[in-house]
């Protein structure tokens, strides 16, 4: 369980998410479920990863793509044309 809490805090930091201790059980069981894949290791010896199912080549773009977007149409705070986000806060 202590192990899980450590994992939880690492994942929480990397994913920028608050995870609850009660997620531990689910996360542990999913992790265990994923680990069953190690049985398949011997079957895929020498096999390369498959990231794009057809192993085709990408198109290349020559013409224009999409229309422009007016930033004000998005749900953002705009200041003199810039999109404004909180950064360091009050210090």
């Amino acid at each position, binding site marked *: 369980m202590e192990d899980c809490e450590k*994992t*939880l805090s*690492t*994942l*929480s930091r*990397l*994913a*920028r*998410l*608050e*995870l609850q201790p009660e*997620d531990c059980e*689910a*996360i542990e*069981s*999913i*992790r265990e*479920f*994923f680990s*069953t*894949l*190690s*049985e*398949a*290791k011997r*079957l*895929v010896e020498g*096999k*390369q*990863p*498959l*990231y*794009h*199912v*057809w192993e*085709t080549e*990408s*198109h290349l*773009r020559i*013409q224009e*793509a*999409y*229309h422009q*977007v*007016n930033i004000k*149409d*998005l*749900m*953002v*705070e705009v200041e003199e044309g810039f*999109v404004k*986000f*909180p*950064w*360091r*806060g*009050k210090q």
Partner: protein
Amino acid sequence: MTTIYQQLQTGDYDPVEAFEKAWERITRHEKTVNAFITIDDYNKLRVKAEEASKRIRSGEPRLLEGVLVAVKDNISTSWLPTTAGSRMLSCYQPPYNAYVVERLLEAGAIIVGKTNMDEFAMGSTGEFSAFGPTRNPWDLERVPGGSSSGSGAALAYRAVDLALGSDTGGSIRLPGAYTATVGLKPTYGAVSRRGLIPYANSLEQIGPMARSVIDTALLYKVISGYDPLDATSIKGPGIELERLQPADPSKLKICVIKEVLEASQKQVVAAFTRVIEKLEANGADVNYVSLKSQRYVLPTYYIIAMAEAASNLARYDGGIYNCGSLKMPTWEEQNIRVRSMLFGREVKRRIAMGVFVLSEGYRDEYYVLATRVRRMVRDEVLGLTRDCIIASPTSPVQPPRLGERISDPLSLYALDLATVTANLAGVPALQLPIATTSEGPVGIQLMARPWGEEDLFNTGLLIEEITGLRGVYAL
């Protein structure tokens, strides 16, 4: 039961009449079923239906003139909000249309609304929507299947004629199985993903859903095609509707996956076997085969899907997509706060696990291994489908009751046992109903070689003849 395709062919389809009837059903059932997240304005839709009727009268109808279509809410529409079933996007209206939406509009379809779904398409029952679960019109205590839950349910109660879903690991086919509708997961690359809010890009496709095989084919014809603005889009052979006809059973070779059958419920196996035996009796060559990689497909699929999901969902950081409501003093706090508040529990879990399988020290053990097993799965499926239609029940069980599967993630993932294989292998897969029982409908899944959509539709037409389940609906 006449299909939409037939009605369009014979000129019997009257958009105004169809719309008014559908609107009446929506008014009556939508509150209970909850198939839609957004429904367009009655008056606007009525005007569109009238225009379509006019066009038909003037003899210039387009392929889907006035046909009522529901679009899953993870497919971008510039005039309707597109939420992907998440609170995170509850204020988001895209500034552009998805490729498939452009195709629908060009074909004269009327988009009635945006359908409910599991948040970011992560779910197999439709219960993980931030806008409340969708109920199964065949049995309101049961789930309609997910994640294209609303599209399946809307078809089942005839709120629309056709619907678009998206299928990452069964998200079109499970709702099809549970709502007795037809759905296709196309060959990877056949339908542009441009404008589809991604869950797992390398696995998913937008696909057609309908109440008959021919209507599914009709919608597939409209939405499929090469898109230069999707780098994974491929020029396929296309499909000619006139050429489709029930397959000749004596020329049909079927391969039934033993492992899926063994893992399925009795009633499901019984319904499935009845259909297979009839096919065999009519001369089909039926083989019971073992899919060596079947036992690995679920972890392989979920590892890849969650890794891609964690990456895709990183952009929801409380900057552009939080309705401006949650404000925190610092950027990092705002990220954490917004993501923790506006993502649902299952989405958070999948992001966390996706980050886990990609993180240093685990990437090779989990993510890279899964992509290597994926190669094995693909190659095995490609080998089998070279001369065989792979058949199995679409879901190992009949529609679960609401709440039955939400607490244990593994029992939820188990519902995808038969469906994820097609996504891992990139091949097309068709779901169609084979039984409606007191426990809910049962569906069959057919998988073919890449670009074997025509074979699937023809086999589907044959099975439709055997079961008589064409154009069925609930309520």
